């Protein structure tokens, strides 16, 4: 269970929202010259990082507006929330403080937020 700060309504429980997958996926501008492989990439392949993930959310049980968020998928910590159309925030200075190679805490694996 996580809290998400809707840019229009404020902080609400995640169950009020629906996830819309990766953000900033751009539809190919040259559809006619695309190969099957490129189309497959666009339709089926999305990034799935363990760490910083730019994603879309919609406040389904609230204002019903779409917005974007940046979340750390190894801890579910939401780092930034921004409106659709806003520039993709630069998080290059974000430092993952989890020391294990895959970005997991040493003890347990999913209970970082609880044990902190």
């Amino acid at each position, binding site marked *: 269970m996580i809290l998400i700060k809707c840019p229009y309504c404020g902080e609400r429980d995640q169950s009020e929202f629906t996830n819309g997958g990766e953000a900033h996926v751009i539809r190919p501008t040259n559809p006619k010259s695309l190969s*099957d492989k490129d189309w497959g990439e666009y339709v089926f*392949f999305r990034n*799935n990082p363990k760490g910083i993930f730019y994603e879309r959310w919609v406040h389904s049980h609230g204002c019903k507006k779409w917005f974007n968020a940046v979340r750390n998928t*190894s801890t*579910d910590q939401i780092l930034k929330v921004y409106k659709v159309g806003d520039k993709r925030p630069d998080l290059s200075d974000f430092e993952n403080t989890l020391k294990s190679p895959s970005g997991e805490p040493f003890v347990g694996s999913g209970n970082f937020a609880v044990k902190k």
Partner: protein
Amino acid sequence: MRKKYSFLSLIKNAFTNNENWQKMWESPEPKKGYDVIIVGGGGHGLGTAYYLAKHHGIKNIAVIEKGWLGSGNTGRNTTIIRSNYLWDESAYLYDHAVKLWENLSKDLNYNMMFSQRGVLNLAHNEHDIKEIKRRVSANRLNGLDTMWLDKNEVKDLVPIMNTENLRYPVLGAAYQPRGGVARHDAVAWGYAMRADELGVDIIQNCEVKGIKTDNYKVEGVETTKGFIKSSKIGVVASGHTSVLAATAGVRLPLQSRPLQALVSEPIKPVINTVVMSNAVHAYVSQSDKGELVIGAGTDGYNSFTQRGGYDVIEETVRAIVELYPIFGKMKMLRQWGGIVDICPDASPIISKCDVEGLYFNCGWGTGGFKATPGSANVFAHTIANDEPHKINAPFALSRFSDGRLIDEHGAAAVAH
């Protein structure tokens, strides 16, 4: 020496307080290089190593696991086994697994506690009936033992089920008598023990940090215990497969999400089959200890936290209580989450890729346990021959560009 288990050895060890059982496998330090490295020490990975050593004569193999054996999804699933999938390709793959399950205890001389107690898939509305009857017909054409049961027959099998007085009444079900459950740990341990006997190095508590490639050819893996060389690498890391693939520059159409399960306090036997319902999202079976084993759904967003959201369990438990009012006051003992790798068409990827010597067995999503022996068997064939077995050829990565998807969203018990 082959470790044999029998009734006699059980009695003998009972008298010595169970302190003299032999170690089941060694835990060697990794060598500098191997012919084949399997990344991921769950059922699928250990099984792959076993079949590579047993059927394909490759002995110099390592299985590298970041935690302990079976600590990932092999130890986190609800142990349900069935093969009633819609399309021919899936029916062949999953039934290949069920056939191997049927002899696995004997093959490994290790008790899998495989119990073919039957699996029911409930229909709650007109659409469900049509979809399930279509699937039953497709199954029967593929020689599977699935059948359609009407409401009364379902009630006969599961007398505690409330079929009438609920929002979505039970109208019938698909039933596969050969389906059932098995003991999840036993699969990992059985394969590990026999693979170890065939000379496979099982390396635990060693995390693969990255796959090293040179000019589209694998060179080895970078681990917490140093670099290990190999010209063939099979990645069977479920939720973390796409993270590892990215280190080799390979993109996979996978999304990782937490999938939850929970067990109740143990009670006397009340349900002797497995009951699943896609429509209200409830599935339940009873373990040999008497606990109800309940599978919940996936979270609606990508995450690597092995935890899961509370609203997901709430939804499942609500449906369970409506379907089985007798469970209304039971206490739940444990809840946990595992990270599953979900594929766009709800079918796995067992395939080569653009990088020479790199193989993937992934995308099992919410239902990989049932396929463990079959998946391991055909994946071993793929690695040994650098060519897919005819059973897993349709499950190639190329299906996402040539459009030959194997859409099993209807047969997958947990909505993807």
